[in-house]
């Protein structure tokens, strides 16, 4: 009887799981073949890790949901609970082992040296004596290079940046994980892979340390995938099968698999894209940019409204409140102005959940930007209020007005004109600073720029488009400010 109840419970549970989402995170800027946007249709995310994540979810009877987060924030984001797993080329290292639980590996690979095609002198690491070599920040490649005291290490935020510097001659070689070397050199004839592969890179799924149950299920799914050959099929499709995997997983069959994704990628990204094709691409990404522009714009407007509101409060407290409160307001302003917005965002997003305050990314972004700019606004308004001569206040008081009336009818209306230009400046500046919120999983304009640019390896063209978008969305506000200035400006402020 008991067993039956248990069985029913299990069935109910599995049923529930069937509608549950497997929320996993990866940075869609990671480039091919990990996670990237489809060149034909950039709103589609793809990559071998994307396929693996879907296969895992399917085997766990869950629906899959990809959560976007900046690569740096992937692990910290786990503890916020916005997603339950990270599948994004996360190497198993000892440091990380302390922070997260790792699944069994889903991929083994190695380090690959990449040099300029025109360079025939460099064939191995030893040839790089005294030369500058690039590697991805926090990667195995970086650690390997650090130990070689005879080369000059350059660390990069992304492999593509290293490749570009290599192409431009700023470094002599790049040491990267094999998959990205393979994909990048395939479509960039100016670079080539040289030397024997070396080192061992292991990619695993990372889950929260308290989520052992999920880990078990993921491990089960992974081993089933490896056993059944599904994993090989996925990896072959991406042209990522290699001898290390064969020996690790004991799969030495010589069967020929279709390499569809690899072939598609190479075909879609062959260089020498014509102008028309390039334009078509830009048109294709417009919906993405449109959406991101809306995010940036709404985020900026709401944040600015918050900043103006809080800034007014702070300014009034600073000027008019009793000493202790005024001092507190001053301290708040100085602390906020004196610390980087990026740190503030990290604290709000990743640290506050630790004391039970968990904000959605949008809310965290609005609060972060709003509070930060409130400090600047407060100082603007304070300056605006103080700029209105002392005599105006006295004149109002002498006419029998109360302090509040004097502020409301005499001081503030005159201050408004003074503060409109700085407010406009701040808004434009906030519009641009809003790009920082991509570190807390927000997909806004700059984030989409990075993703699209990474997809096409086209940083210039996409960059110009995004710059124009920023410029265009800023302009209406400049005009609006002009209008207000004019409205209040009719009554020009000169001391009479």
């Amino acid at each position: 009887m008991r067993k039956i109840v248990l069985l029913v419970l299990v069935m109910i549970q599995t049923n529930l799981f069937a509608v549950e989402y497997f929320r996993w995170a990866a940075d869609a800027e990671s480039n091919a073949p990990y996670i990237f946007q489809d060149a034909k249709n950039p709103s589609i995310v793809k990559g071998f890790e994307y396929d693996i994540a879907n296969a895992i979810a399917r085997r766990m009877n869950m629906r899959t949901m990809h959560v976007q987060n900046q690569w740096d924030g992937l692990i910290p984001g786990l503890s916020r609970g916005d997603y339950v797993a990270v599948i994004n080329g996360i190497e198993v290292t000892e440091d990380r082992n302390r922070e997260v639980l790792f699944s069994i590996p889903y991929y083994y690979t190695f380090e690959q040296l990449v040099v300029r095609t025109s360079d025939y002198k460099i064939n191995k690491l030893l040839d790089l004596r005294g030369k500058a070599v690039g590697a991805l920040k926090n990667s195995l490649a970086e650690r390997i290079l650090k130990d070689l005291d005879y080369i000059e290490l350059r660390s990069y935020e992304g492999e593509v940046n290293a490749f570009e510097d290599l192409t431009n001659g700023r470094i002599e070689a790049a040491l990267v994980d094999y998959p990205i070397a393979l994909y990048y050199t395939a479509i960039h004839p100016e670079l080539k892979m040289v030397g024997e592969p070396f080192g061992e890179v292991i990619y695993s799924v990372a889950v929260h340390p308290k989520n052992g149950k999920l880990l078990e299920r993921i491990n089960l799914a992974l081993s089933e995938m490896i056993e059944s050959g599904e994993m090989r099929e996925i990896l072959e499709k991406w042209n990522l099968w290699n001898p290390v995997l064969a020996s690790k997983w004991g799969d030495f069959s010589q069967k020929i698999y279709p390499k569809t994704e690899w072939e598609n990628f190479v075909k879609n990204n062959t260089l020498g894209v014509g102008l028309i094709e390039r334009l078509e691409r830009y048109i294709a990404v417009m919906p993405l940019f449109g959406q991101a522009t809306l995010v940036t714009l709404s985020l900026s407007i709401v944040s600015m409204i918050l900043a103006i509101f809080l800034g007014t409060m702070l300014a009034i407290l600073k000027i008019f409140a009793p000493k202790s409160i005024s001092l507190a307001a001053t301290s708040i302003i100085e602390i906020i102005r004196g610390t980087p917005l990026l740190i503030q965002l990290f604290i709000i997003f990743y640290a506050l959940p630790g004391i039970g305050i968990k904000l959605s990314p949008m809310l965290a972004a609005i609060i972060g930007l709003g509070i930060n700019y409130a400090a600047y606004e407060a100082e603007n308004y304070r300056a605006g209020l103080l700029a209105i001569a002392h005599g105006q206040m006295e004149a109002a008081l002498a006419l029998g007005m109360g302090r509040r009336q004097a502020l409301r009818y005499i001081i503030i209306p005159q201050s408004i004109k003074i503060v409109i230009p700085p407010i406009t400046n701040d808004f434009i500046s906030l519009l641009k600073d809003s790009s920082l919120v991509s570190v807390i999983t927000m997909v806004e304009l700059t984030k989409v720029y990075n993703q699209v640019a990474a997809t096409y390896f086209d940083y210039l063209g996409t960059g110009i488009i995004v710059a124009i978008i920023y410029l265009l969305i800023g302009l209406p506000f400049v005009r609006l400010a002009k209008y207000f200035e004019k409205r209040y400006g009719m009554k020009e402020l000169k001391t009479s």
Partner: protein
Amino acid sequence: MTSPIISVEKVNLLKNGVHILKNIDLQIYPQKVVGIIGKSGSGKTSLLRTLNFLETIDNGKITIDGIVVNANLLVKKSKQRIDRSDNPFRVFTTENELINRFRKEIYKIRSKVGFVFQELHLFPHFSVLDNVAQPLIIVQKQSKDQAVANAEKVLEKVGMKKYKERYPHHLSGGQKQRVAIARALALQPKIIMYDEPTSALDPENVVEIIEVINQLKKDGITQVVVSHEYFFFRKVCDELVYVDSGEVIEHNTTEEIIKRPRDERTHNYLKIFTV
């Protein structure tokens, strides 16, 4: 004789540790035009500002039209008025004990006293009409139509009605002066105080102001004028108060003071103008 409309008893004022006004005693009777004269730095402007509580006295008693503000009632504290020059509003914040204690009285007094600043302090964001009408709406809660009608009446009186649509920075010095007077006058005060009303004026404008003051005197308004312009105060004032180093040295009719100053300091001061 009627009782004084302004009565100052043993008033002292310290500012940043400097003894500005020393044991001032002063009585001003209704419908008089009283000039406060003296060298610059003598404390004459401070004395005028004290009468409207733009300066807060440290002790002493001021009675204006029967309303008493008695600083002697305050708990004596060593008064530390730190000059926070970065914050001109600080003086008017809750820290100010005298204003807190006598808030009602001070507002009542201010409603009876019009004050014309040396720098005028017209409201630059208001038109001439609004400069006069807005305070009526804000302070006296008059309806807009009523306030505008009253403001126009007063502007008419000072000859500024035709400029009512203009903004202060479009006016000449004399015109601004008259708007400032109109603004004070509109609230129908019993007393009007002027701080150096002629300092920024051309001679012909001075004559205009004298006419306005004489007109207001006929209307029964008590007027107190700080001035150091001999021609002006001799012409317009019924009485003169000579102030030196924060003290009232002499208070008498204009004729007496000018013709027969009793104190040597008064004599020496007036000598400058007659040489």
